[in-house]
């Protein structure tokens, strides 16, 4: 249902993005030839006919042929998928690990120069737009220091249909800047979330009891407190993977990262309707799936939900 609505909304939006014909032909093409091309692409049919055709084909996994690149859209997306997934996974990892660690630190040491500093920098992370951060990073690490590449994916290794950048040094170097750029926003989010959770949990009775029992601080902080503090983080992180994919549009454009977001931006500029619709439907699908998985995970991670469910059934 959600998918159908997304498909419809995105489809109706395309009526406002412009005419692909002029991008597809040279300026010397006659008006008759333009009309003919428009006819062959099915752009002359009424909207509801176009939409029905789109839904029928999409349910079969066919999204047509890209106007710009003249290749099947499903093939293009599969080709670009590995780059985006690798980027998103690495940045999710960076965001989760460093976000949690920094969050715990600032949660425990509430006052202190380093905590204030981390929070101030993280504030910058949320307020600066991704492309500004990306370009700042490029100038700092590529132009001034010259240690990391400013664009591209480096050398990739083909493993079946999956092309990976993880197996070469240039590939690993190339992923650092884009993934850090992409992760900053999420990291900030997680820092703040973990910090709030930790501060709240450290006030609770069972922590006080644990302290009274003489358990050492480290064990209290990381074993008892963090465990409970992580539950909402995992929920949020799951949903945020979807957001990361969406945000990656900008990061990929800045770093010339050959992923799906980059494909989408190019499609928008060209009015490449088949790619745009397939991408939006795909993203909707990812969001629906992630929400579904998170709901299920919730059940396993949070014992309270299980207890409630059991008592209701019994």
């Amino acid at each position: 249902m959600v998918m159908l609505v997304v498909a419809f909304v995105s489809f109706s939006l395309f009526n406002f993005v412009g005419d692909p014909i002029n991008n597809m032909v040279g300026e010397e093409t006659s008006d008759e030839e333009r009309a003919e091309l428009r006819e062959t692409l099915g752009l002359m049919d009424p909207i509801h006919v176009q939409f029905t055709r789109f839904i029928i084909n999409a349910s079969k996994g066919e999204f047509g042929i890209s106007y710009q690149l003249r290749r099947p859209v499903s093939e293009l997306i599969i080709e670009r998928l590995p780059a985006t997934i690798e980027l998103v996974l690495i940045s999710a990892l960076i965001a989760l690990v460093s976000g949690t660690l920094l969050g715990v630190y600032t949660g425990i040491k509430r006052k202190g120069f380093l905590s204030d500093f981390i929070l101030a920098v993280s504030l910058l992370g949320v307020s600066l737009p991704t492309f500004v951060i990306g370009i700042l990073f490029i100038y700092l690490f590529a132009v001034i220091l010259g240690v990391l590449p400013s664009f591209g994916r480096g050398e990739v290794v083909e493993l079946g249909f999956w092309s990976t950048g993880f197996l070469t040094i240039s590939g690993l170097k190339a992923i650092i800047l884009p993934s850090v750029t992409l992760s900053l926003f999420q990291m900030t989010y997680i820092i703040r979330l973990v910090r709030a959770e930790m501060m709240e949990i450290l006030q609770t009775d069972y922590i006080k009891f644990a302290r009274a029992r003489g358990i050492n601080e480290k064990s209290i902080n990381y074993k008892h407190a963090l465990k409970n503090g992580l539950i909402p983080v995992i929920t949020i992180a799951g949903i945020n993977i979807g957001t990361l994919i969406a945000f990656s549009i900008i990061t990929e454009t800045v770093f010339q990262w050959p992923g799906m977001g980059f494909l989408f931006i190019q499609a928008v500029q060209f009015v490449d309707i088949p790619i745009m619709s397939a991408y939006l439907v795909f993203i909707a699908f990812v969001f629906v799936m992630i929400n579904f998985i998170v709901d299920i995970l919730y059940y396993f991670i949070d014992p309270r939900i299980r207890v409630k469910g059991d008592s209701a059934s019994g």
Partner: protein
Amino acid sequence: MKYGYFIKILLAFFLAFAPTQAFAKTIKWSMQGDSLTLDPHAQNEGPTTQVSRQVYEALVTRGLDMKIGPQLATEWRTQGPNTWIFKLREDVKFSDGTPFTSEDVVFSILRAKQRTSDFKEYISTVSGVKAVNDYTVEITTSKPNPILLNQLSNIFIMSKKWSEKNFAVMAQNWDAGQETFSATNAMGTGPFKITLREPNTKTVFKRNKKWWGTMKDDKVTEIHLLPIKNAATRVAALLSGEIDVVTDAPVQDLARIKNSPAHKVESTAQMRTIFLGMDQGADKLRTGNTGDNPFKKKAVRQALYQAIDIEAIKKKVMRGLSEPAGIITFPGVNGYTEELDKRLPYDVAAAKKLLADAGYPNGFEVELRCPNDRYVNDEAICTAVVGMLGKIGVKVNLFAQTKSKHFKELKDNQGDFYMLGWGVPTLDSHYVFHYLYESGASWNRVNFSNSDVDAAIRVMEGEVNLDKRNAAIAKAWKIVKDDISYLPLHHQVISWAAKKDVNVPIRPNNEPLFRFASFD
């Protein structure tokens, strides 16, 4: 400890021998887009031709001076008005070793005329081509064609044998999304061959050892094309040394590149003129307030012309990178003269008077349509024009939008007043008249119509006597310039940026020729 020494010695060796590697050098080239297909007849499009031109050659070609000269043909002559004889080079081999003969020329020209080729319209007047002997080709045209050489300079010659072996006898059908061997592989007679092709990521050109010509600099052994879409990233990659030459350096970054001690910027007038069109055909402006169409009066058009301070646009909007234009064509095009390219003076008082004399002392209102992602600073130019015309009382409402909507609506004849740019790939004035001035022409959205100009266009199409033909071109330019059918603004300037020690000569058609590249 022992190992430590060993590594140090190894490192020292590396460093000592590293400079000898520098003899063979790679030029890393970047631009916004990439070639769409390697099939040389499937797409007539900028970056596609730029890539193909390094690998494929044509019968004749434009050199650094943009003049037509011999390439695979050494000489040519006409035999009667419709027949051309071309003598071919005899020492040419394709990069796979097969000798080049007239069979390949006949094959390639016929291939470019096939239904699936994007050049079929382009050389539609070529009616026959046959091999007289191994090194002579005869081309016949359906009517006298004065610009045949221009057209042939863009028809690349493929190997008949190679195409047959790889099922590439037909040009790739781009519109149907066909995938062919020729779309992902290239094999020509040119100075380079393509050894790696990852669309939109990386294309590697290596020297073709069998090439008949001589490189300007033998040290240039490899070219890597690495397209980067985002302008800021492209400049950063250049400044950080990952890229050697950028053939579309963005205007806003030129100053910064120039400030870098290791880089340089070159600029030249591009083959594109930016102008404004005013619909003179409509009885009433769609977006006007006077109930009639002021643009029908020449005095009004001239008033608008003289109210535009083009030098201010050049200085403030274009940062010096534009050449004010008097006609919609540029140096290098047949028919262009400096005299024609002179503008009427900028004169607000005269403009006001003209407007008052024409019956609009209080000006009028009109909408100006502009693209905002097509030409260099397009929207900013329009904004400047709005302010300038406001000074003579013409209230212009700016409507700027993306090119895919702008051109569509222009084609649907929705614009009273609009911006357009025009390039001339054939380098002949006919291309301008045929599309912008001929009655009912596809881009003639000002609805200009003049029987003398139409007659002159007929002469341009059929007259092989160059003097008579050039006289017709000159006459047509005079008529349309005096009529002020369009408001010419400026010729765009393009800039290439490169490392100081890498020389790739800039060309007005934005097409690099790496056989002329060199290192300091």
